[in-house]
Structure formats: structure tokens, C-alpha cells
């Protein structure tokens, strides 16, 4: 006799009253095992995977991705076959339950499923646990259909690895001899690791770098700073770079697109949501400025400030990180001369900007103090040629060196 249990968002941790449903890890109709992760929930502290308290079938998902849910509110319904003993319930009690008169009718129902008790020796079960392989999905090729280690490995290679498109890093176990500290990879850090692996595994990156004479940009910012401050805005170089980037992207739209390799299509985006990489204590977060092409410099500056502080407080919502089209990362703020970032998959390119340095340079045959900044570009070489990307970078350099060109209304200087 199946019964339906409502799963509520559990108390995730101290002081956390609500969480945002980031991603469902199961869908309606899926069979789940007890303690299997159901959903990723982003709290203001971290991303948490919520395990299922029961084994059964997912009857209904009661919360949408992106929705904020209060602790204690139902998030899903699970259909449970028969009366399964919850964790820790002792055997004596379980035996007593089975001795109830109606047990016979129930036993047949339970039987059909349990019948498929998996034939796998302990070493194979251990391997499956370590690889995260569900043995009920593996076909055994050993004597009498016993699942062998080879079967588990084959399943793992063919399914899990491919499904996740994730190259697992073989971690050499340092067993016993050397002191180590084991830091669990969870929440944002775990997602960062997954996304980096995915991006690097899928995208053949090519890197370009360019030096920009930023003297005009520095001068422009000096001029605008006062006005910005009077409006309560702290103007950094980033909003200026964003404006220049949008302008260059409009001319080179492949860098504002996504390759759907499986379908064999390039999806060129007609909107410009520019991501900014923010380094936080919990890990890397990339919120984006929506429709940066339609926004003014000060508005962009204001939004950057908001997003950055949200990110540092771990309060970035799914809405803020979703639907980015191109990313900018400030590599030089701490001190590197040049760095090549990893593309924020499924975007097609990422721009690295660096510290602006003052040094002597020639301007109209005169040696004088000038400002310079390195910029770097990583792009998806599956569908973007080196020449195309170089021309994008050259255009961007031109804009950054002559800010009037990107600040002026469209078409004016064409």
C-alpha cells in the first residue's frame, strides 16, 4: 500500500529561515533512495544538497527552481511502497511490524521490488559506492548474472562520466603516512569545481593578449568621478570597460553566443548580460549586469556595487547568475601582469582586465607619463577563428583608448 509523504525544507543551519531552490536533482516519477540528494538549495550561507528522508518515487515537486522557500514548507511529495523502517529503527521493531496480520498482502507488493536484490559481491558494492554508481541500473555479466567490478567500471565510464561530461580528477590518496587536512568540497566551491571542469572539458580555449593605452580612460574617469560621487555612485573602471565591451560585442557577435554542439547550432544572443567574476569567501560567483547595452554608465556602476556586495554576503540569487552572455574578470587587482581566465560555460569568451600602470610612453612623438593596461581574451576555438577574435580584441582596444567612441550614441561614428 503506497503512502504519500510530504518532504519539507529541513532546518539547514543556524539562523537560516529560507532557501532558494537552485536545481532539482530528481524529476517527477524518479525512484529515489533514502539519503539520495533531491535538490540543491542556496541559502545565504552556502549551497546545500537536501537528502531524501525516504526511499520511494518522486510524486510531485512542489517548488520551482529559483523559488525561495521557507524552512518547514513542503518542497516535494514522495510515494512510499509499504512500511519501510526509517534509519536507525532496530531490527526487533521491524520484525514486530512484519508479524502483523496484514503483512502477507503487503509482502507480495514489497516482494516484486526487493526481488531484484542486486547480486554483487562486497568489493563490487564498495566500488559502486565510491564511484556513486547505482547498482540497480548495472547489468551483471558474471556467473549467474553477478555484477563484476568490470561491469561497474563500464557503467561508470559509459554513463556517469559522459552524463556529467565531467572529467574526474584522479586524486592520489595519501594513505596514512603524511599528515593531511581533508576539507569537504561543498556548496559554491563544489559548483565552481564542477563548472570549471565542464568548461575546460568542453571548450578548447585559445588565448590572446593586448596592451591598451588607458590614458584617455583614466582621464575620463577622473572627469566623471566628481559627477558620479554627487549622485552617490562610486565609479570604477569596470563600468567603462563594460560599455566598451558591449560596443565591440555588437560588432563581433560570435563572442556573445553559445555553441550548441549536440544540435550543431550557434546561438547568437541579441542581448548583453555582462557577468562580473567576484571572488568571495565561499568561492567564485559570477553575477551579471542584465541588458548592459540599454543601461547608462552610472546605473551599471550602481548595479556592480550591489551585485558585488550581495556576492560577498553570499546573497546572490539564481536570477543574478542566470543567463549571462559574456564575462569580465579583473585579474590584475591583486597584481598579476597577465592571466588567462576559463570561459564561463556555456558562454563563448571571457575578458581578463588587469592593473592600470603609469609608465613613460610615446604620444605623438613625445615621451610622457602614460597609463597602460593589459587585457586578455579566452575564446571558444570550436567556432571562433583566431582572426575574428583578434579583430574583436583590436576593436575593444580601440574603444578603450578612445572612450568617446563607445560613449557616444550608436551609429554616430560609423
Amino acid at each position, binding site marked *: 500500500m503506497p503512502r504519500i509523504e510530504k518532504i519539507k525544507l529541513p532546518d539547514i543551519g543556524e539562523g537560516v529561515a529560507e532557501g532558494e531552490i537552485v536545481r532539482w536533482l530528481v524529476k517527477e516519477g524518479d525512484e529515489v533512495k533514502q*539519503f539520495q540528494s533531491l535538490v540543491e538549495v542556496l541559502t545565504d550561507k552556502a549551497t546545500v544538497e537536501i537528502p531524501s528522508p525516504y526511499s520511494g518515487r518522486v510524486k510531485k515537486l512542489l517548488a520551482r527552481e529559483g523559488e525561495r522557500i521557507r524552512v518547514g514548507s513542503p518542497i516535494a511529495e514522495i510515494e512510499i511502497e509499504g512500511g519501510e523502517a526509517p534509519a536507525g529503527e*532496530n531490527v526487533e521493531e521491524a520484525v514486530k511490524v512484519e508479524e502483523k496480520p496484514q503483512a502477507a498482502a503487503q509482502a507480495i507488493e514489497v516482494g516484486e521490488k526487493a526481488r531484484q536484490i542486486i547480486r554483487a559481491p562486497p568489493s563490487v558494492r564498495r566500488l559502486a559506492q565510491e564511484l556513486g554508481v547505482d547498482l540497480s541500473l548495472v547489468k551483471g555479466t558474471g556467473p549467474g548474472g553477478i555484477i563484476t567490478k568490470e561491469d561497474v567500471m563500464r557503467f561508470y565510464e559509459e554513463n556517469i562520466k559522459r552524463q556529467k561530461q565531467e572529467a574526474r580528477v584522479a586524486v592520489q590518496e595519501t594513505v596514512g603516512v603524511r599528515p593531511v587536512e581533508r576539507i569537504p568540497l561543498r556548496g559554491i566551491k563544489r559548483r565552481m569545481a564542477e563548472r570549471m571542469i565542464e568548461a575546460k572539458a568542453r571548450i578548447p580555449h585559445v588565448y590572446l593578449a593586448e596592451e591598451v593605452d588607458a590614458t584617455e580612460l583614466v582621464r575620463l574617469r577622473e572627469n566623471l568621478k566628481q559627477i558620479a560621487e554627487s549622485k552617490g555612485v562610486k565609479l570604477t573602471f569596470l563600468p567603462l570597460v563594460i560599455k566598451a565591451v558591449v560596443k565591440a560585442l555588437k560588432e563581433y557577435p560570435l563572442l556573445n553566443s553559445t555553441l550548441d554542439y549536440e544540435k550543431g547550432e550557434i546561438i547568437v544572443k541579441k542581448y548583453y548580460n555582462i557577468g562580473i567574476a567576484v571572488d568571495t569567501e565561499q568561492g567564485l560567483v559570477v553575477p551579471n549586469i542584465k541588458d548592459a547595452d540599454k543601461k547608462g554608465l552610472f546605473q551599471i556602476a550602481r548595479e556592480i556595487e550591489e551585485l558585488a556586495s550581495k556576492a560577498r554576503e553570499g546573497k546572490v540569487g539564481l536570477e543574478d547568475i542566470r543567463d549571462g552572455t559574456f564575462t569580465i574578470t579583473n585579474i590584475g587587482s591583486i597584481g598579476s601582469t597577465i592571466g588567462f581566465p576559463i570561459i564561463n560555460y556555456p558562454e563563448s569568451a571571457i575578458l581578463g582586465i588587469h592593473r592600470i600602470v603609469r609608465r613613460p610612453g610615446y604620444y605623438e612623438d613625445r615621451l610622457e607619463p602614460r597609463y597602460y593596461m593589459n587585457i586578455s581574451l579566452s575564446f571558444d576555438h570550436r567556432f571562433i577563428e583566431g582572426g575574428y577574435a583578434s579583430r574583436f580584441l583590436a576593436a575593444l582596444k580601440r574603444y578603450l583608448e578612445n572612450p568617446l567612441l563607445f560613449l557616444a550614441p550608436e551609429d554616430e561614428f560609423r
Partner: protein
Amino acid sequence: MGMDRYDLVVIGGGPGGYPGAIRASQLGLRVALVEASRLGGECTNYGCIPTKAMIRPANILWSLRSMGFVKGNLDLAFDEYMEWVSSITNRISGGVEMLLKGYGVDLYRGVASLTSEGIISVEGIGDLRAGKILIATGTEPSDLPGVAVDGEVIHNNRTILGIRRKPSSILIIGGGYIGVEFAGLFAKIGVEVRLVEIMPSLLPGMDQDLSRAAERILRESGVKIYTGTTVSSIAKRQSEADVELSNGERFSVEKILVAVGRKPTRISGLDRAGVGVDGKGYIKVDDGMRTSNPNIYASGDIAGPLLLAHKAFMQSIVAAENIAGGRVKYDPRAVPSVIFTEPEMAFVGMGEEEARKHGYNTKSVKMPMGGIARAIIEGSEEGFAKVVYDDDTKQVLGFVIVSPHASELISEASLAIEMGASIEDLALTIHPHPTVSEIFEEISELALGRPKHFLVRRRPSRVS
């Protein structure tokens, strides 16, 4: 003492605790272990080890006497016997200490309690700071209301080990495996034994064939068995007690042993730490031995039945590996149980009822030991074996065995179940002759309809 910081603090030095401490240390963690009493826990000091030590001389004495052709007076120097038993437990407990120290586990002696998140307070020592905690405090003997253990006349399994003079008579209350083992051993060294069990049969909850075998085996060694019976009153007089049973029978005994089950040994601070317990006080764990507090694990008896040392060993290791960052489960198919009577009794896996409930096309075959030459030599042809299997796949699901060395033999059945072996596999595996292990080959052949050493008479088929 300043607060020492450990990756793992294990509370309890018994089978649920020390293996995990060793494994965690092998995996590179900084580990401490807190023990309130003796290392090795109930098993080493008051359970498995001393009782088996007591049983072996008792069995030797009994079998020499019962052979009839060994002449002369054989007797037991009881105090030396008990000294030898305690020397065995000391040696094994000392071995645990040597291992822990050898693996660099810091030992603290005292009662532990959880004071605040990640802090363990050890009575008389101070606070320890722990990244993770493994609770393995085990169980202790349950009390029988109105029958207070005094360590003089009325004993539990712990205090009885302290006696140094052989009692003339003993009443054992409780016919579970502890009561049954003590009844058999005391009877064999010449103590008048009465065994009282409230349920209708001994070894309640176990296979009925085992209950019957236990009664037969104990009766043969002279134990008076009272099933479906309770103790109505106990009146202590100096060094003995007058007892009245629920059936009206009255007698005097020199010692009373209370063996009515076990209860969890809880430490203080579980509530505060958010560690969930069930209605009986056992800590709730998942199959990775995690409690409801993500930094606290539990293993062994305190994590709930089965209350067996070998189960505790495995759980302790699983807990340690998960604490060290692994992701493994405690998911045995086969946890063997042994009752150290003579002949011994052992079982593993599913009984017929359970197998049927799991939807197997359940078949079982029982076979007496009489066909096994070695069992006759060992004087235990009254034993038997039983195999439970699935008739479609012939997969071995469960095994019961009553025979000499059953405690050793059962592991072949455990391995068969864990490996998913079939009775055909057992039948085709050559077993050395003459050994009791041949029963695996014989009973599998019987199940397949072609035993070598057992006559199956074909009944002529009749048309009705």
C-alpha cells in the same frame, strides 16, 4: 591542560570504537580515544572473550567425562580457572591498548560528555576539541525490576566473572544467547543449573529449529529449563536465595545470574548536540553511520541492534572512512550470529519467512549431521544444517548450522551470501574430508536432489 584539537575523538574503546580510531589514524587523521573503563569494551572484558575462555575448559572436561573410556578423576580448580580467564581478557585488552598507542591514538581515561559543538569534556581530565566525533559507548546489562544485582548472590554478566569459588547451584534468568551460553558452561563444570525464560521457547526471536536444538543440548548437559515461566519472588539469605517461580516451584540457589537483555549506554549532551535517538535510546544513524548531527557519527551497539562485536567492527571502520572523507556504506548482506553451546549454533542471512517476504522463490532444506563422518567422531551427530535459497537462481540466502565448530564454519555461508553464490557453487566446491565443512557440499547436493552421504528414498508415484 590546554585544549587539544583532534580531527576525530572516539568515545568508547570497545569493538565499535577502537577499530575506527585505528583506521582514522591510518588515514592520516589526528585521533584521540576516550574510555571510561577498560579498553576492549564489554566484548573483551565481560562478554565474548571471557565467556569463550570459560567455555573451552568446560567443554573439554565435559567431553572427556562423557567419553566413558577416559578413566580417573577429572576436576576443575575453579579459582585458577577464573584467574586464567581473567589473564586472557587482560592480555586482549592490553593488546588493544598496544595497537592504539602504536597507531598514535591518544588515550584519555574518563567519562566523556558532549558539552558544546565540537567539545568533549572528559571527567577529571578536561576538554578535547574535535572536528568529528564517533560515539561508540555500547550497551550495558539491563536490570530486572525488583532484582538488584549485588555482586554477591545476584549477578549480571559482568559481576559473575568475579566469583572465585564454584557455586553448587545457579538460577539463570533469561534464555537469550547469554543465558543459554552460561547455562551450558556452568552445567558442564558440575553446577546445578536452572534456566528461566518468560517466552515459550529459548532463544526467542531466533529460528525455531535453533530454539529446539538449544533446549535439547542444555537438557543433555543437565540444565533444568523453565520456559513460559517467570520468577515470582527472591528472598536473599546470607550466601544464598530462596526462589519461587510462577509455576509454584520453590528452591534455594547459591547464585542468581540476571541475563534479561541489554540497554544503551548513553552519554550526556546528546540532546544538545542534536543527536537523534530512537524510543529505546539507541542513536539513529544512516548507512554511512552519520547521526543527525553532521559532525557526529555512531557505531556498534549504541547505533542499535544487532548487538554484535563483529557488526561493531565493520560499522566502526565505515564510520572512520567516511570521517576521513570517504563515501562508503555499512551494507552487509550477511551478519552471522553464533551461540557458543556445544555443539555450537550459528546462523546467517535470511530465514524462510524473511526470504519469502522479500519475494524470493524460497526453498529450504534441512539435513542432519549424521551423514558427516567427522561430526560423528566429534560426538555431535545430533546437529543439523539448513540452507535457505532461491529456487530460480539457486542463490544462497541463509544458513543455519548446529555442529562442532559451527562458529568457524558459518563464514563459508557468509561469503556465499555476500558473493551471491548458488547452492550449485557450494556443491561443486571440494571440501576436505573428513571435516564438518563437508556439510556445505552435502546439503547443497541434497537441495539439488543428489546427496552422496544421505539416503533419499523415492516414494513410488501414485495416481490419485
